Each structure stands twice: as structure tokens, then as C-alpha cells.
């Protein structure tokens, strides 16, 4: 921890900032103290976290039936396309105009075919409008479709008190107005709701400075930027937004198998030995791009081994903690703290405020030089308006809550409650016999459904029982691996989880979803309790 510098900056849009962040702050002494203590406490549980990540394969008949189901859907899709083409049936989908028929076809690829013929049939399970805050319970507007999901209309009724298992509300901070939010009301009254300027011009408020200082303290940070002649090694399951950003940077991208250290090492060795593809010159920089928690699998990145590799081959590490900040780690500081590693091990931290903090926007944190460079050169600092003050205040409030700076232990209690809920939920699901992906400690729980019509039936039945779930299908996941993704929250009580588990049990029997071969096996109790015995 020799370098007390570094800053974290944030803005209304992802990735950019421009602010003079004060490098050495008054809290340096305490910061180092906290860090050392966490290190000492962290060492023992680092080895316990080399865990149980399971990606069990489905039984063969399930895969056969899944592909068969898609095959039948595809056949009917061709049939309906034929009818639509010949005018026997009215076409509600987007088609090209008559004059464009001789140009390159726009809607003939598989994705459009899939959307038109398979997705449309079960479309009522997505984009459901809600009309309350996305807390542990929420209200869903009831809607029906008269023409098989091409158009919807609202009946005017509202389904009240649906249990929310889909929002990224890990710490339960996205709730209706309550007294602790009074500071936000005051900020709204003082600053108004908009900033009406970019960071470079007049859009930098003292609220932004306060937020950035607090964020740097939270993450304990202080970088590699990617220029041309650089290589990016990116995990194959990285989110589309990261992949697009990497492509825009102009560097060469090579994917490695998900969380597979041997594959990554092989790629690193090849890159260093053979250099750039045609000129054989050395790469200027090699950047490894990973996520903290992968949103579709619920797996946690294998950070200690990746950091060891990075140090051995002198590469840089960029970690996207969108789902893991605030949700894992003994004090909620993300995957780095979960494994008990040094904050300097990761070069660039990126994260969002939309998930655990209940606001909007994102941040990038790292060494001071990196952040200063971004402040000056990033596009949105120049062109986009900065973060709105009430939102900044909400993030400040959440951060203070999590860090315990508001004087209560509520933040720590929420984090522990989240961990308890996660453990309970995952254990029970495994006992019941569902196939679940991901790390045992991750609050994102994907339950595999496989067949497309089970996906639709599952979502509809769960809504009938007043539980709102998110189901995910083809373009976001591989074709045969459709799943339902549960996001556990600290605001879920044991009764709510029990209701959900009971409903899942019945659904599992009705739809025959309990594929796992390890039903009712006695799981060895991992030493989880040790992780939470920090003195506070």
C-alpha cells in the first residue's frame, strides 16, 4: 500500500470523468490500517474461497428434447414465414418495403427469424411494466394480448405485492422513499434535478467531488490504458457492452475459455513468444479483461490465479465489477476483497451504481494517472452532461451506509443478510434437485430450464403465483441453455424465500425441471461462518 494516491471518478454515464480528485486524503492513515487488518483477516479465508463452482451438464434426453423443441419451432417458423410471404397471413413483423427488395436482405438472418417466430410467441414474459419501486415486493401492471403477443393492452388492473426475484437489488437499497432518504430531498431542493452542462464546462459540482473521494476510499485504490499495438485477452462470457467497448478501442482481441487459467496462460505465452501477428514485434501492452460476477452464469472470476499469471507475464488486469460491487466480500467491496487481495493487484476497476447502490451511472477507479488521463480525454466528459445531484446524493448515502460512516452497522448487516440469504437459497435449490450454475457465494442464481416452452410456462406460472422472475433465452445464453435467473437481495426475508422455494418445488414437479443427478446429497458445510467474524 505504498501508493496512497489514486482516485475514483464517476459520472452519469459510464466510464468518464473529469475532476480534480485529491490524491492524498486525510484518511490515508486509516485507510492503510483498514487494509492491513483486512489482509490479515483475509489470508485464512482466501484459501476457503477456492470453491465449488458447478456447471453440471444436463442429462442427454433433456438436450435431445430441447433441440427437438427448437426444431419443431423452426419448422413452424418456416411454415408461417411461407404463409406470410405469400400473403395468406397478415404480416405483423418488420419487413422491407417493395422498393428495397433487390438490396441486401435485412431480415433474413437467424436472429431475425428467431425473433419473429419463436421469441414473439413467448414475448409476454419480458418487458413487463411495473408501477412501484423495485424493492422486495413490487406491483406489476397486468397486460393481455389479443393477437398472440404482437400487440399488448393493459387491462387496468395491477398485480400487487409480487415477490421480486429479478431486480439487481442486492443490498435492498432500491426502495420507496423513507426517512433516511431525506438528504436526497434536501439535495433536490438545493441543486435541482439537472445539471445542464458537461463535466468540462460547468457541470462539476461539489457533490461529484464528494462522491469521487468517497468512492476512492471505499475501493482503496490508486493503470493501463489501451492504445493501438495492444492486445486484449477477454473472457469468452464477457458482457456485450465490454466486448463492444474493447472493439471500439481498436486493439486486437483474443477470447479465452471462461475462467480457464490454463487457456489464458497458453494465450499469454503465445502472445509473448510470437508477438503481433504480422510484424512479430512485441505487444505494447496486454490487458486481461474479466468480470467480477458473470451475470448469466453466476460464477465468480478466479482472481488469485489470474493475478498470479498477470504478475508472472507482466500483463494488466481490468475488472468489471458491475454485479459484484456491494454484493460480495465481507464488507461489500467486491471480488477483490472477497479473495482478500491487494488493491493494487487489479489495474482498472470498473463498476456500476445501478445494481447494489440503487442509482444510475458507473465509475472507473485505479491509479491517479489513469484517472487523470480519463478526466481529460474521455468523450463523455466533453460531450455528455454530468450526473444529476439527487442521484449523486443517493450514491453517497448508500456508500456511507455500506461503509458504516453514518454511524450504524446497517450496511454490514445488509451484506451479511445477503450472504445468508444466498447460502440458504442455493442450498435449498440444490437439495431439491435443480441444476444451478455458478459459485456458491454469488447472489446471482441461474436455474437451468433448457426447453423453450418450459421457459414460457415457468415465467407465466410464477407470475400467477405472484412471484416475478427473469427468464433468459437464446441470444443472451447459448441456444440449448435457457435459464431463469434469480437475484437474491438483502431485503428478502426468510418467509419470502420460503414462499419462492415452495413455488419452485411445485413448478419443478409440474414442469419436470429437477434434472440434477445430485439430489438431496449432503453438502459439506464450507467454512463460511469464518468469513463473517470480523470484529466490528
Amino acid at each position: 500500500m505504498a501508493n496512497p494516491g489514486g482516485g475514483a471518478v464517476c459520472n452519469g454515464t459510464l466510464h468518464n470523468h473529469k475532476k480534480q480528485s485529491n490524491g492524498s486524503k486525510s484518511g490515508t492513515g486509516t485507510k492503510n490500517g483498514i487494509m492491513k487488518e483486512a489482509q490479515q483477516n483475509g489470508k485464512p479465508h482466501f484459501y476457503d474461497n477456492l470453491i465449488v463452482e458447478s456447471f453440471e451438464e444436463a442429462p442427454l434426453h433433456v438436450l435431445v428434447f430441447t433441440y427437438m423443441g427448437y426444431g419443431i419451432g423452426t419448422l413452424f417458423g418456416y411454415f408461417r414465414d411461407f404463409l406470410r410471404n405469400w400473403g395468406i397471413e397478415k404480416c405483423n413483423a418488420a419487413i422491407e418495403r417493395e422498393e428495397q427488395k433487390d438490396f441486401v436482405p435485412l431480415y433474413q438472418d437467424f436472429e431475425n427469424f428467431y425473433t419473429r417466430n419463436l421469441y414473439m410467441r413467448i414475448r409476454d414474459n419480458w418487458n413487463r411494466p411495473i408501477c412501484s419501486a423495485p424493492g422486495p415486493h413490487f406491483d406489476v401492471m397486468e397486460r393481455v394480448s389479443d393477437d398472440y403477443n404482437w400487440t399488448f393492452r393493459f387491462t387496468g388492473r395491477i398485480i400487487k405485492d409480487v415477490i421480486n426475484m429479478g431486480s439487481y437489488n442486492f443490498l435492498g437499497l432500491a426502495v420507496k422513499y423513507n426517512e433516511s432518504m431525506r438528504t436526497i430531498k434536501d439535495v433536490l431542493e438545493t441543486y435541482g434535478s439537472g445539471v445542464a452542462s458537461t463535466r468540462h464546462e460547468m457541470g462539476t459540482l461539489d457533490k461529484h467531488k464528494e462522491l469521487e473521494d468517497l468512492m476512492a476510499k471505499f475501493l482503496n485504490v490508486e493503470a493501463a490504458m489501451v492504445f493501438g499495438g495492444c492486445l486484449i485477452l477477454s473472457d469468452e462470457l464477457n458482457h456485450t457492452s465490454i466486448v463492444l467497448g474493447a472493439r471500439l478501442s481498436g486493439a486486437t482481441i483474443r477470447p479465452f475459455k471462461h475462467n480457464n487459467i490454463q487457456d489464458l496462460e497458453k494465450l499469454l505465452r503465445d502472445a509473448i513468444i510470437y508477438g503481433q501477428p504480422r510484424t512479430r514485434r512485441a505487444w505494447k501492452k496486454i490487458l486481461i479483461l474479466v468480470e467480477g460476477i458473470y451475470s448469466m452464469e453466476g460464477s465468480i472470476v478466479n482472481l488469485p490465479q489470474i493475478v498470479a499469471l498477470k504478475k508472472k507475464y507482466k500483463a494488466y488486469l481490468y475488472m468489471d465489477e458491475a454485479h459484484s460491487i456491494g454484493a460480495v466480500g465481507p464488507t461489500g467491496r467486491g471480488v477483490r476483497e472477497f479473495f482478500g487481495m491487494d488493491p493494487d493487484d487489479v489495474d482498472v476497476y470498473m463498476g456500476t451504481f445501478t445494481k447494489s447502490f440503487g442509482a444510475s451511472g458507473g465509475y472507473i477507479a485505479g491509479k491517479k494517472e489513469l484517472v487523470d488521463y480519463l478526466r481529460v480525454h474521455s468523450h463523455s466528459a466533453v460531450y455528455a452532461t454530468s450526473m444529476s445531484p439527487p442521484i449523486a446524493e443517493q450514491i453517497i448515502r448508500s456508500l456511507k451506509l455500506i461503509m458504516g460512516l453514518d454511524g450504524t452497522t446497517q450496511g454490514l448487516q445488509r451484506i451479511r443478510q445477503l450472504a445468508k440469504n444466498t447460502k440458504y437459497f442455493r442450498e435449498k435449490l440444490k437439495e431439491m434437485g435443480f441444476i444451478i450454475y455458478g459459485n456458491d457465494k454469488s447472489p446471482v442464481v441461474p436455474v437451468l430450464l433448457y426447453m423453450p416452452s418450459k421457459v414460457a410456462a415457468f415465467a407465466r406460472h410464477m407470475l400467477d403465483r405472484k412471484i416475478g422472475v427473469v427468464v433468459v433465452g437464446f441470444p443472451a445464453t447459448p441456444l440449448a441453455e435457457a435459464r431463469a435467473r434469480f437475484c437474491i437481495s438483502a431485503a428478502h426475508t426468510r418467509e419470502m424465500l420460503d414462499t419462492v422455494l415452495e413455488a419452485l418445488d411445485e413448478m419443478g414437479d409440474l414442469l419436470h425441471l429437477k434434472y440434477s443427478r445430485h439430489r438431496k446429497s449432503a453438502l459439506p458445510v464450507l467454512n463460511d461462518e469464518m468469513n463473517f467474524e470480523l470484529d466490528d
Partner: protein
Amino acid sequence: MDFRRVKEYFSWLYYQYQIISCCAVLEPWERSMFNTILLTIFAMVVYTAYVFIPIHIRLAWEFFSKICGYHSTVSN
């Protein structure tokens, strides 16, 4: 009482069939079309089995017994 249980079981089985073969997400006329085609194919299979399997078995039996018979007459 037992009848109801059996009926429930069959209706669960029919639901499983609908789910697995994507009939649950098809429109009603598509469903009837699919069921008709499937039943037709199944009926043809059953008919063909009924008509041809006994004859085939008899012919195969004769063929193999002739070989064994020839073999035994030669060895004699």
C-alpha cells in the same frame, strides 16, 4: 376416486408432451395441425407394423432355419 387420479395423471402427461414439443407456445390451429400430423404418422407406423411384422418374422425364421437345416444336412 381412482379414475380421477388416472385422469389427472394423463392430463399431466399430455401437458408434458405439449411442453416438450413446443405445442404449448403454438397457436391453437397450429397445435391441431401438429397433433393431426403426428397422429397420422403414428397410425401409419402402427398399421405397417401390424401388417408386415408377422410376415417378416415368418420369412426370417424360414430363412434361418433353412440355413441351419442345410448346415446340418451338409455336416451329416
